[in-house]
């Protein structure tokens, strides 16, 4: 048993069907190298373009840990729990789509939320649903953790201000500006990052 495949016939059929295509479509199937003259010109063009940028740098990135992008106040970054405000209603735990929030009991046997930063997708449903606005939000999103377990917070850690551990503390905040010649460029706002 088995299916006999006539590879020669198939490849012949494919090549005749390519032959019958319109010339502008044929271009996709038959890659031809340009002749000597144009290809030399193209190579020289590519090299001069590269050299232009080496001689006159035109950077479109920022010098990250020393400069950071200024985020709008509604930017969804890391947040912390204001333990005295929370009423322990568990709505944040119920709404969280990625199951990042878990309710634990504090020493006074009251329910309080803790978060797993490894699961959180920063959708802010929890912040929105909280009836007493018990979450203090920041625009920090670039925190690094040494171990996976560090991302699981307990109540003490979740009530700490993430601004204290901001990796780009003291960095210059940059604003995006549109420039006629270069497109988008960054300009310093004059404000330093961190410290509240």
């Amino acid at each position, binding site marked *: 048993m088995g299916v006999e495949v006539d590879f020669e016939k198939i490849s012949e059929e494919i090549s005749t069907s390519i032959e019958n295509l319109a010339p502008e479509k044929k271009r996709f199937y038959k890659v031809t190298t340009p002749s000597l003259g144009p290809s030399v010109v193209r190579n020289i063009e590519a090299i001069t*373009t590269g050299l232009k*940028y*080496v001689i006159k740098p035109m*950077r479109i*990135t920022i010098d990250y840990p020393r400069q950071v992008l200024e985020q709008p106040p509604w930017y969804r970054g890391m947040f912390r729990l204001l333990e005295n405000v929370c009423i322990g209603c568990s709505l944040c735990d119920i709404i969280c789509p990625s199951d990042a929030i878990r309710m634990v009991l504090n020493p006074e046997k009251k329910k309080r939320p803790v978060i797993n930063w490894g699961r959180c997708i920063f959708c802010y449903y929890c912040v929105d649903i909280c009836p007493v606005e018990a979450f203090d939000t920041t625009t920090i999103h670039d925190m690094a953790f040494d171990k996976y377990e560090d991302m699981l917070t307990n109540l003490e850690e979740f009530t700490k201000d993430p601004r204290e551990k901001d990796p780009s503390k003291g960095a210059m905040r940059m604003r995006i500006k549109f420039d006629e010649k270069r497109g988008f460029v960054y300009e310093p706002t004059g404000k330093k990052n961190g410290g509240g």
Partner: protein
Amino acid sequence: MIQEILLLKELLGNNEMIYRTVIGLGYMLIYPGLIMIVIAAALLLWAERKIVALVQLRYGPLWISRRIGGALQGFADLIRFSFQEVIIPRRSDVIPFLLSPGLAILFSVLPIAFMPVSPYIKPPIHSDIGLLAAIAVISVAPIFIVLMGWASDNKFAFVGSLREALLIVSYEIPFIISILSMGVMFGSLDFYEIVERQSLLPGMLLNPFAFLASFIAMLRVTSRFPFEISEAETEIVAGPYTEYSGLMFGLSMGLAYIKLYVYALMVSLVFLGGWLPIVSGEGVIGGFLIPSLIVILKLTVVSLVAVFLRAVYGRYRIDQAIRIGWIHVFALSIVSLVWSIILVYGGWVRWA
């Protein structure tokens, strides 16, 4: 340092053997040999990353030694590599796996023994077929790259080493033909005579075909873009070096830069006139240091152009690279050989 060398010469003046051994060891191990090569490779690594970053509108390495634009990044990498753990895969062939990076580097550095950098201090082996000998020694190195892939027992490493073998054959032959056609033209394979005979015109202008062919072949042989096919990160992780880690990875990654240094030295001696415009000099400074710095400068220009091309070109497909190698570059090298023969037998070049 210089004073000590002079003192050493005075002390050992009547014992030629010891004097030559000391000078030869210094030549091979310190300058322009091993230590200089490591420094040059680390700086070249930084220069490549910086140039590519500039063309791609980025900053490039800047964290270490910020004041000088991150120039010490290569050394930092080297230190990091040497403190990392070396993992030996269980199924690898251990002895060739461990030995081949070192041997490949050894055979890449060894041609320095034949190549002079100055008129005053001669290389350890001053031979009248120095050019041929240097090429012969350095073409052993790719065998160990193939061995690396074979000993790793990893499919990416194996594919990478096969690619290396295939492409080395297609490009080393044009390189050898085109650089030997310079030997035909200069009527000598001795580096000293080759450099001397370029005092009017550099070899690059005497035989531009040979320069072009050997530069393109050099790009492939030292794994530079657009021929960086055997290490293609996007396709086969790191090619023959996939299974290496720690210091071994540092060695195998530095190998391409070490080869680039040696090939660029050869190209700058044969095509760019070596230490010319200085013809001869006396003493350690005038006869050795300044001419060798001129050679290093020419070498740097050649290798900077070679690393700059990474920013401009994409990577060729393997069949494209082989077609270019055997049709265009090989043809160019044959043309360069014919050109040399015409120049010599037509009587346009004549050496005393």
